[in-house]
C-alpha cells in the first residue's frame, strides 16, 4: 500500500489559486497605498499653503451676474445656485443638440445611401467636411464668421416687426396664455394616453383580423383637434409678448443668444456627421436577403424600411450612437471659448476663480459630467435591450 506522497507541486506557493490571490492582494495594496499617499499629501500641502478646503463656500453669495439662466438667478444667490444654473445650461444645449444631431444624422445617413447620385454625393461631402474639421474651429466659425457679422441692434433685420435678428441674438415673440391653458395641457396629456391605447388596440386588431388601422394619421388629427376644441371651449386667450427696441437692447419675447446658437449649430452639425456614418453602417449591415425576402412578401418600400431594415439596423446603430451622445455632452464644455454660460464656464470658471476652491469645484464638475454620461448610457442600454435580437 502506497501512501500518497506530497510532491513538490502541492506546496502552497505552487498552488495557482493561492499565488493568484497573493498577487491580487499585492496589486490592491499598492493601489490603495498610492491613493492614500496622494490624499494625505494633498491634504498636507493644502494645509501648509493655507488654502481653505470643504464645501462651505457653496452657501456664500456669488455676487456676479449670469446672462442666461433657466431658473431665477441674481447676484445675491449662492455659489451653489451658480452650480445649478451651469448644469441646466449645459443640459439645455446638450439635449437640444442630441435631438437635432439625431434627426440630421439619420437624414444624412439615409441620404448617403440614396440611389440619387446628387443627394448621395452632397451627403458625402457634408460628412467628410464636418467630420474632419476640429470642433473648436467650427464653433469659432459660427460665432465669429456667421453670427458676429450680424447688424447692430438699431439696424436689426426684422420680419414683420415680430422677429428680430442682430449681433446680440435672435428675438422672437413669446406667447402668454390665460389660466385656461391648464385645460389645454391636460387635454394634450389625455389625448396622448388615448393614442397609446389606440395603438395597442390597432396592433391586436391586426393580429386578430389582419386589418390595418391608420393609427398615425388618426393620432395627428386627434392631437390637433382635441386640444384645439379645449382651447376654444375653455375660453383661453393668448397675448403675444413682442420684442421691441427699448433703450440699449430689445426687451420682451424670447432671446436666443448668439453664443447658444453658435455652440448648438457646431455641436449638431459636427456630431450629425458622425451619426450619419453610423446610420449608414447600420443600414448596410442588414443582409441583402432580408430585403429580398421582404420584397417577396410584397412589402412597400416604406414598410420595408420601417418593419425590416430599421429594427435590424438599430441593433448595430445604438451602441456607437450612445458614444456620440456622450461626446456631444462632453464637447459642450467648449462653450467657455465663446462665453456661453455652461457648467464649465460658470462654475469651473468664474465661481472657481472667485472662491478659489479649485479641487472641490473640479471634482463636482467631473462628477456632473460623469453622472450625465452614465444616465445617457443607462437610457441607451435599456433602449438597446428592447431593440436587441429576441431569440425565440
Amino acid at each position: 500500500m502506497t501512501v500518497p506522497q506530497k510532491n513538490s507541486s502541492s506546496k502552497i506557493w505552487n498552488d495557482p489559486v493561492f499565488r493568484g490571490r497573493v498577487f491580487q492582494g499585492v496589486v490592491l495594496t499598492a493601489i490603495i497605498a498610492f491613493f492614500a499617499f496622494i490624499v494625505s499629501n494633498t491634504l498636507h500641502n493644502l494645509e501648509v499653503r493655507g488654502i481653505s478646503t470643504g464645501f462651505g463656500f457653496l452657501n456664500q453669495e456669488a455676487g456676479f451676474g449670469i446672462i442666461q439662466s433657466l431658473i431665477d438667478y441674481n447676484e445675491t444667490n449662492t455659489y451653489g445656485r451658480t452650480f445649478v444654473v451651469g448644469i441646466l445650461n449645459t443640459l439645455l444645449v446638450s439635449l437640444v443638440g442630441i435631438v437635432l444631431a439625431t434627426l440630421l444624422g439619420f437624414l444624412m445617413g439615409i441620404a448617403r445611401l440614396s440611389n440619387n447620385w446628387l443627394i448621395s454625393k452632397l451627403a458625402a461631402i457634408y460628412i467628410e467636411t464636418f467630420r474632419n474639421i476640429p470642433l473648436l474651429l467650427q464653433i469659432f466659425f459660427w460665432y465669429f464668421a456667421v453670427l458676429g457679422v450680424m447688424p447692430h441692434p438699431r439696424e436689426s433685420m426684422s420680419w414683420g416687426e415680430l422677429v428680430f435678428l442682430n449681433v446680440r441674438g435672435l428675438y422672437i415673440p413669446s406667447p402668454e396664455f390665460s389660466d385656461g391653458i391648464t385645460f389645454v395641457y391636460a387635454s394634450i396629456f389625455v389625448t396622448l394616453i388615448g393614442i397609446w391605447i389606440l395603438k395597442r388596440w390597432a396592433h391586436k386588431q391586426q393580429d386578430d383580423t389582419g386589418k390595418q388601422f391608420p393609427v398615425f394619421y388618426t393620432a395627428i388629427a386627434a392631437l390637433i383637434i382635441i386640444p384645439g376644441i379645449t382651447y376654444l371651449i375653455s375660453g383661453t386667450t393668448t397675448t403675444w409678448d413682442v420684442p421691441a427696441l427699448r433703450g440699449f437692447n430689445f426687451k420682451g419675447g424670447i432671446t436666443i443668444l448668439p453664443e447658444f446658437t453658435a455652440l448648438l449649430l457646431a455641436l449638431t452639425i459636427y456630431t450629425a456627421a458622425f451619426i450619419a456614418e453610423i446610420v449608414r453602417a447600420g443600414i448596410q449591415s442588414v443582409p441583402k436577403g432580408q430585403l429580398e425576402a421582404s420584397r417577396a412578401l410584397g412589402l412597400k418600400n416604406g414598410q420595408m424600411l420601417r418593419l425590416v431594415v430599421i429594427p435590424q439596423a438599430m441593433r448595430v446603430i445604438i451602441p456607437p450612437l450612445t458614444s456620440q451622445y456622450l461626446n456631444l455632452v462632453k464637447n459642450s464644455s467648449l462653450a467657455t471659448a465663446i462665453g456661453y454660460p455652461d457648467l464649465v464656464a460658470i462654475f469651473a470658471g468664474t465661481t472657481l476663480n472667485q472662491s478659489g476652491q479649485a479641487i472641490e469645484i473640479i471634482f463636482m464638475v467631473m462628477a456632473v459630467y460623469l453622472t450625465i454620461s452614465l444616465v445617457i448610457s443607462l437610457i441607451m442600454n435599456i433602449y438597446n435591450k428592447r431593440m436587441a435580437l429576441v431569440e425565440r
Partner: protein
Amino acid sequence: MRKILSTAIVSTSLLVAATAQAGTLADVKSKGFMNCGVSTGLPGFSNTDEKGEWKGVDVDTCKAVAAAVFGDASKVKYVPLTAKERFTALQSGEIDLLSRNTTWTLTRDTGLGLNFAGVNYYDGQGFMVSKKIGVKSALELDGATVCVQAGTTTELNLADYFRANKMSYKPITFDTSDQTAGAFDNGRCDVLTSDQSQLYALRIKLKNPADAEVLPEVISKEPLGPVVRQGDDEWFNIAKWSLNAMITAEELGVTQANVDDMTKSTNPNIQRLLGVTGEMGGKLKVGNDWAYKIIKQVGNYGESFERNVGTGSPLKIQRGINALWNKGGFLYSPPIR
C-alpha cells in the same frame, strides 16, 4: 462626513500632489531662473513687443525680483495666464511670482493661500462705451449689455454697481481681455468694463479708438500688485522689498542712468539702498548689491511707469494717484534700513 468627502475629493486630484516644496528661493536658485505669471497680453502691464520680448510695469516687477535674486533681470521665464488660471498656477507651484494686474482683496489674501507683496499700480474700475450711443454717465447704462473678463473682481464690482443703482444689465464674459475688447468692437456689447488702465490699453487695440470713450465714473478701488504663495516668508520678503527698492530709488532720485555715480553718494539712505553700507541684502538672503542691480537693469518705479504706461508710451496715463506720497500720490515705501 465632511472630512471623508473632502478626502475622497482630493484623492481624485493630482493637482496639488507634488511634494511640498522647500523654500521658493532655494528652488529658484537651483533652477537658475524664475517663473513669473503675467497676463496674456495687456499693453503697458505685460505684453510682448515686436521682437517678442515681454514689456510692462508688471513685467518690470518680475525683472526686479530676478535682478535681486540672480543679479540678472533676464533670468525670468514668463508664463502667460488668463484671469481664471492665475491663482491655481501660483498655488500649484507652476509659477513663483504672479505679477498680472491682480487686485488685492481680503478673500484672496486669506482663503487662497496667497500673499500680496505690495501694490505696483493703484487702479479703479471704469466703463468704456461707444460714442455713438451718446451716454455721458455710467448711471445711464440701465439695460446695457456689458462685456467683462471672467473670474475678476471687475465682474463682482459690476454686479454690485448695477444692483446698488437699481439698474439691470446683461453680462457677456470671456476668458481674456482681448476677447472682451473684440466683442465690444463688433457690437456684441454696449459697454466694456475693466480697470481704467486696462480700458485705455484696450482702446488703442480697437479698430477705431476715437469712437470709444471712457466714462468718468470710477466704481471701485483696485490696488494691483505682485502675489506669492503663503507660508514662504523668505520669498515673500524678497518680492515685497524688490518693489519697495524701486519706489525708494525714485524717492531718492536714483535712476538707471545715475546709479553708478550714486554709489559714491554721501547720503546714508542711498548708501544703504545700494549696498555701499549696511547688510540689507544679507537680511533678505540675496546679494548686498540687490537694489543696485534692480535699478541698473530695470530702473526706478517712476522710470518704469513712464516707459510703460506714462507719457513715454502710447497709453499716456498720468501719474495721478500713482505718484509718490510726497508728490500727491499713494506710493510709499517703508524705509530700507
